[in-house]
């Protein structure tokens, strides 16, 4: 792995060296390295590009890293990763994709991730998308995340895209059974002429299932963001979605949260707010000695933290 790839790996997965535990590092369309443990197996798919990650029931305090690095301009790939998390397991999964594109061709990575959480399994899934490059080639990422949660399972998904992705179309779906919980925290910042579309679709099918979808975004320059979320309440359940966006310059933000209650005991809430940085926030920080620009950066950093 060269220096550029190592830098990207640091950005997307916070890795300075080979991670502990199970991992699968993919670089420029091929497996770079892999490690499995007694409880976590990683197997390459035979019919298509991608891997199966199989976590034994009862596995706790273990983590899996599956970062992807693209440094070859114009490389386009679609990868299917399936996660099977056994009953009662409690694990952290760190994914993430970084593109370094110094050419003129479009680099694209589409990760199709499917999670199967068995009864009472717990997953924290961290995903970070990052792009860089000095060429005119576009960096495109179209991730799809589909999560099936069995009874009592819970999943927290944290996804971040702060820099360098020209176009993204992100789809996240959740199907929840009894007592299952699905939480999504998404942070996005777009600038230049970037376009980011995100859509969430969560079906609360089991009794007492619940979800919390929180999106915070900042749209700068001439970037465009579209946010749609649909929560389907098909049983006695709780659903909450929140889309909060700061709009700046000539950016465009479109938020369309939807709630479908198909059961009298479904309790669903959505909140959506779009607005520029409040003048009084800037003034307050300026009275502390910050310039207007510094105040703006602090407000944005805090908002996306």
């Amino acid at each position, binding site marked *: 792995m060269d220096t550029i790839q190592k830098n990207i790996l640091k950005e997307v997965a916070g890795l300075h060296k080979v991670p502990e535990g199970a991992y699968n590092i993919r670089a420029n369309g091929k497996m770079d390295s892999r490690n499995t443990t007694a409880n976590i197996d990683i197997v390459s798919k035979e019919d298509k590009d991608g891997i199966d990650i199989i976590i034994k029931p009862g596995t706790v305090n273990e983590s899996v890293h599956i970062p992807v690095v693209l440094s070859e301009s114009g490389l386009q790939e679609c990868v299917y990763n399936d996660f099977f998390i056994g009953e009662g397991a409690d694990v952290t999964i760190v994914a993430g994709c970084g593109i370094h594109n110094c050419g003129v061709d479009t680099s694209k990575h589409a990760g199709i991730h499917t999670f199967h959480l068995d009864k009472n399994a717990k997953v924290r899934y961290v995903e970070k998308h990052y792009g860089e490059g000095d060429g005119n080639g576009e960096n495109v990422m179209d991730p799809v995340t589909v999560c099936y949660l069995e009874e009592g399972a819970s999943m927290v998904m944290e996804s971040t895209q702060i820099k360098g992705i020209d176009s993204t179309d992100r789809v996240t779906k959740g199907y929840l059974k009894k007592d299952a919980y699905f939480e999504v925290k998404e942070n996005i910042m777009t600038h230049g002429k970037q376009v980011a579309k995100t859509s969430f679709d969560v079906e609360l099918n089991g009794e007492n299932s619940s979800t919390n979808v929180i999106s915070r975004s900042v749209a700068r320059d001439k970037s465009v963001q579209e946010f749609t979320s649909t929560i389907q309440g098909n049983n006695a359940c709780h659903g909450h979605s929140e889309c909060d966006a700061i709009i700046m310059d000539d950016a465009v933000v479109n938020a369309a949260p939807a709630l479908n209650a198909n059961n009298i005991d479904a309790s669903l809430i959505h909140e959506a707010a779009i607005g520029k940085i409040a003048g009084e926030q800037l003034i307050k920080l300026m009275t502390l000695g910050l310039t207007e620009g510094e105040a703006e950066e602090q407000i944005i950093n805090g*908002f996306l933290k």
Partner: protein
Amino acid sequence: MLELKNISYEVSDEVDDSKEILRDISLTIDDHFVAITGPNGGGKSTLAKIIAGILTPTSGQILLDGEDITDMSITDRARAGISFAFQQPVQFKGLTVKDLICLAAGQELKINEVCDLLSEVGLCARDYIDRELNGKLSGGELKRIEIAMIRARGTKLSIFDEPEAGIDLWSFQSLIHVFEKMRDSIDGTIIIISHQERILNIADKIVVLSDGKLTNYGPREEVLPTLLGTANATSACKPLASGLE
């Protein structure tokens, strides 16, 4: 030392009627603890914002230790040594109490330093340090954090715009102690806008603003007796009474 020379402030409404909020205010403040009081709508908050640079006077001049700061930006005045505590503390999504205290201090503070500042304003730091400065905090808590930010800055001039506004009586009772303590411990000048007798009672000097004009300014012993139950109350009623005649 803060000098205000012939400060006036006018606003125009849609039909182009201009209204004078402040009229020809001239004032020199060089005492340790000065209270500004007077009826609502008298121009107190406007004057404070003009000193902090949030509003620009229509005419007049402001000097800080002899330096003309009239045309200085909010940032430059803050760096020159002016702090301003808002009447309605501003909320921030994502920024924590510690973040803001550190921004106010202009440097990364150690946890125990932040704790000291918070306990000075009567907050148990452990419960607050990582909390977001948002609507989940009560009015009293937000006020205390606002005051802690001013303490963290430690500038030569600190202005507090009606710290008692918007908080309940019990919170205010304990907030008074914070100001009493601050008066004894802080260097530099404190200007506090207040209607509260207990605050006026600890002031070295009192400024009375009414209907945009400076109607009285002097040592507490001279000004306070003229306010209690008499002048301050009646001046607010005068326009009403004259309308009835």
